[in-house]
């Protein structure tokens, strides 16, 4: 089992080592039927994620990174094996609130403004429109996006749109953020700034799993998980060890 706990470096304000895991996956395999053939997208993944983890998921395209993220976030169900969320509850209760996604690009809803996009998870969670709007505005302010609050996604640059997507992920104060190549379509400087914002905004007990091709981005995480041929093959702890 890939485990982050024994190697966790305790920084100021970080979670306690013996916390209940947020996600636990055992022998998770995901297969799809395509054109009458069975295609394996992920094979026998076993892992555990704890509060405060910062994990980079590295691997070439088609190695199963996105599939693993969607399974961990309860967006998809495994063909075999189990995914549980010991510290979060049952799958249907995870979103919106406890688990949030940041996608690669174009994940903002085109007909909604930045403010409305950020407020959307709160509204889906049952908050009143006024409260949701206030909270969303506060997060946009915090990410220096307040001037863009009433812009539509098509009026934002790629970096701005991704920052709004980060704000939308953070607005519900999730315990686990799953980011699927959030910097994949950004230039390196913009990607760097986005990651700065994301990491700076995370609370100490919020776990982040980020699928990425970008080694620089990966090395800003505490843990690197490598995937190859749809399998989770190795774990490296800390940027020092991984570099």
């Amino acid at each position, binding site marked *: 089992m890939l485990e982050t706990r024994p190697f966790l470096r305790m920084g100021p304000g970080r979670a306690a080592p013996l916390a209940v895991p947020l996600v636990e996956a055992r022998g998770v395999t995901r297969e*799809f039927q395509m054109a009458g053939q069975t295609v394996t*997208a992920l094979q026998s993944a076993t892992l555990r994620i704890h509060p405060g983890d910062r994990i980079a998921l590295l691997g070439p395209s088609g190695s199963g990174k*996105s*599939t693993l993220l*969607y399974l961990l976030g309860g*967006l*998809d169900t495994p063909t075999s094996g189990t995914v549980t969320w010991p510290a979060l509850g049952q799958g249907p209760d*995870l*979103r*919106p*609130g406890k688990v949030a*996604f940041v*996608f*690669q*690009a*174009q*994940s903002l*809803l*085109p*007909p*909604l*403004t930045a403010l*409305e996009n950020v*407020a*959307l*998870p709160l*509204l*889906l*969670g*049952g*908050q*009143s*429109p006024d409260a949701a709007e206030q909270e969303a505005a506060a997060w946009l302010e915090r990410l220096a996006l307040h001037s863009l609050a009433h812009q*539509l996604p*098509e009026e934002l640059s790629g970096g701005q749109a991704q920052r709004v997507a980060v704000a*939308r992920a953070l607005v519900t104060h999730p315990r686990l953020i799953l980011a*699927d190549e959030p910097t994949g379509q950004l230039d390196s400087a913009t990607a760097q700034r986005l990651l700065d914002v994301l990491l700076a905004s995370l609370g100490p007990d919020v776990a982040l799993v980020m699928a990425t091709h970008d080694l620089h981005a990966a090395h800003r995480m505490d843990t690197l998980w490598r995937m190859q041929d749809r399998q989770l093959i190795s774990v490296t702890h800390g940027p020092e060890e991984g570099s």
Partner: protein
Amino acid sequence: MNLVWLQGLLARRPLRVWGSAAGVALTVAFLALLLTFVSAGRANMTRRAVQAVPVDWQVLLGPGTTLQTAEGAIRTATPVKTLLRVGYADVAGFTASTGGTVQTTGAGKVLGVPNGYRAQFPAEIRPLIGAADGGALLSQQTSANLHAGIGDTVHILRYGAPPATVRVAGIVDLPQADSLFQAVGAPKGLAPQAPPDNVLLLPRATWDTLFAPQRAARPDTVREQLHVRLNRVLPTDPGQAFALITRLANNVEARLSGSAVVGNNLAAKLDGAREDALYAQALFLFLGLPGGILAAALTLTVAGASNAQRQQEAALLRVRGASEQAVVRLGAAEALVVGGTGTAFGLALAALIAPQLTGGLLRPVDALLPALVGLGLAFAAVLLPTLRAVRGASVMAQRRAVGRAGTPLWQRLYLDVGLLALAGLVFWRSAASGYQLVLAPEGVAKASLQLEAFVAPLALWLGGTLLALRLLGLLVAQKRLTRVLRPLSGTLSGVVAASLGRQRPLLLRGAALVALATAFAVSTSIFNATYNDQVRVDAVLTNGADVTVTGNANAPAGEHLAALRALPGVADAQPLIHRFAYVGADLQDIFGIDARHFTDVSTLSNTYFKDMTAAQALARLQSRPDALFVSQETVNDYQLSLGDPLRLRLLNARTHQYEVVPFTFVGVVREFPTAPKDSFLVANAGYLARMTGNGAAEVALLKVSGNPQAVVQAAQQTMVNLPGVQVTDLATVRSRIASGLTAVNLAGLAHIELAFAVLLLAASTGLVLALGLAERRRTFTVLNALGARPHQLGAFLNGEGLVVVGFGGLFGLVIGLGVAQTLIKLLQGVFDPPPEHMLLPWLYLLGLLVAGLISTALALTFARRASGQRVTEVLRAALG
């Protein structure tokens, strides 16, 4: 390369190719069926017109023309099936001594009828009592006037010769008296001559003998006519048939150097039929074209869903070195496959079902236009997007259906207001000209359709839809829908409203199609329902009731009312007195009714009476026993004012003389069940019976609760011993009515229209919504990823459904009602009498609603399922 590309397309993009081809097939089949209907209708009208003519030509010979010359000229000009010589002699009157009194009539006519005439022209003479041929036959009216029956002696008061005596061998009815006694050669535009009140038919040899002296003394009172049945295959189009028959008649007249005149009954009948044919064309344009436009729009929408795909393909092909021409050729090949397959299937479908729906076969000439439209549509749907793609028009620009939409050009130009104003103006002009849509001047070969009148409903349809879009755009913008959506969407209502507002162009496009389809379906179904009801009203007007037993003075059907009422399937029976009365010197039909119970068995439309409803008319009739309704023509001729006394002469049963009976003029009647088209009178049956000493009703009207055919047979059995009594039902009369388009069975058109309307509405609602939702599948998948519950996802989906189907359908309903009303007004000429109000076919409208709801529900369910399925793939495909 083209073949490989096409194989790839068919293998990988079957929906795109076959979906577009299906749209083309639908459009082609619809147009082909409509054209077949029009052709079949025209052929039917010509056939009916020919069948309805008792004698094709009545050639009046001038003094210097011999029979041989005339016959030779006619047979040279055209093949002839039958040609018989009929003598016409004017007489001063007839007298008869019966029952101790002597009756004398006014002027009359004696016809010399050759042997075999009745067999060759069976519609002219209907035997009632006694001999049918070979003796002196008295017309029914003359028999009543003279009180003469079989075996009685009648004296003919000849001009220039002493009275001649004949013995009555039979009593006959002359159903086609108007044409039989027409003034052949009278100048066009002259009012038709009324047939004589007194007629006697003699065998030709007898007539020759009796009228030889009169011919010598008064040659102006004895004439010869040749009655001709032509033996010619006519063009199926009534207009062409009319032109041909007119030319032939002119040819005969020219050959005879003007010494003979052709009374062209066949041309006169075809003249009326060509007007009906133009109305059929009008119906095709009014009812058919919107359906065709809609089917084409739907095809373009379906094909348009693949525009982004085409853009990508074009870009990829260009990147890999394909020239612009090569990409366009590939697009043309796809268009050819779509157009060719769709057109072939559409025509095959039309050919298959045309005989059942239209009663005619799909002719190559009727297939040509739909085939061209099908190919054109395929090129517009497939090739144009490819051309745009090649020329670099940005697909993103095309798909820019979401965002801060500007005001469309048509809104800035107020095209909607302009079109509605145009519709109003054209409608007002049509109304001012009495809705004269078809101009077919009597006797003139050229007929025309007022095409500009079509602008009114078309502009109303399009302008109304654009105005609806403007209003819907205002409603959707600025979150105005928040309050409406609150019950559906709860706390999400604001964000759903905002989302809908910013997808305005996309949603309005869908709503426009739904509104157009709904308006088409609603207007078509209302028109059809109103039309069908009016056909029934027309049949009731002609027949009088569900089943009518028509007797005569000698055998009144009313005397058997109790027996008729007791027949199985008869709900009620009422007597109707039908006699004749002199208004001055004019003999008119007079009807006596029981005003309290007449509508128990028959139908009276408000349009039958001037300045009052049918109920008010009946009340006025009951208000005084001597109340009398007269025709407008009589009012004009005699300068009558309401309340004026009117003295009619009616035959008294006790004295056998025409005696004066006083009446009071209480109103104008335009039409009345069983009444003729020209002048007639309506009075109280009780008063009529009392004043004439004769309570017998000649006619019995039956209301039927069972099978009319069974009632007809039973009534015929009951009346079997009464000579000359006829039993008719609505179906028989309906098939016999030869006036207006109601003569043509529009059921085929109705079936085509109504079936396509449902199909188009279901496709517009479901397909358009589904395509729109599929285009935004990513949006719904992201919502799913954010944690939206099914009911929250439903809030977004239902919001779109509300705008596209709900508001689109609602506006379409209102527009449809307006268009239906306009159509009914403009096509008044089709109806006889014009309808008082439009009839809503509730069952069909409910069916439309159900079809719309089912297709909408299917589309929403599909979208909901699609947004939850294989989230990872959708997200990866869409976001990656």
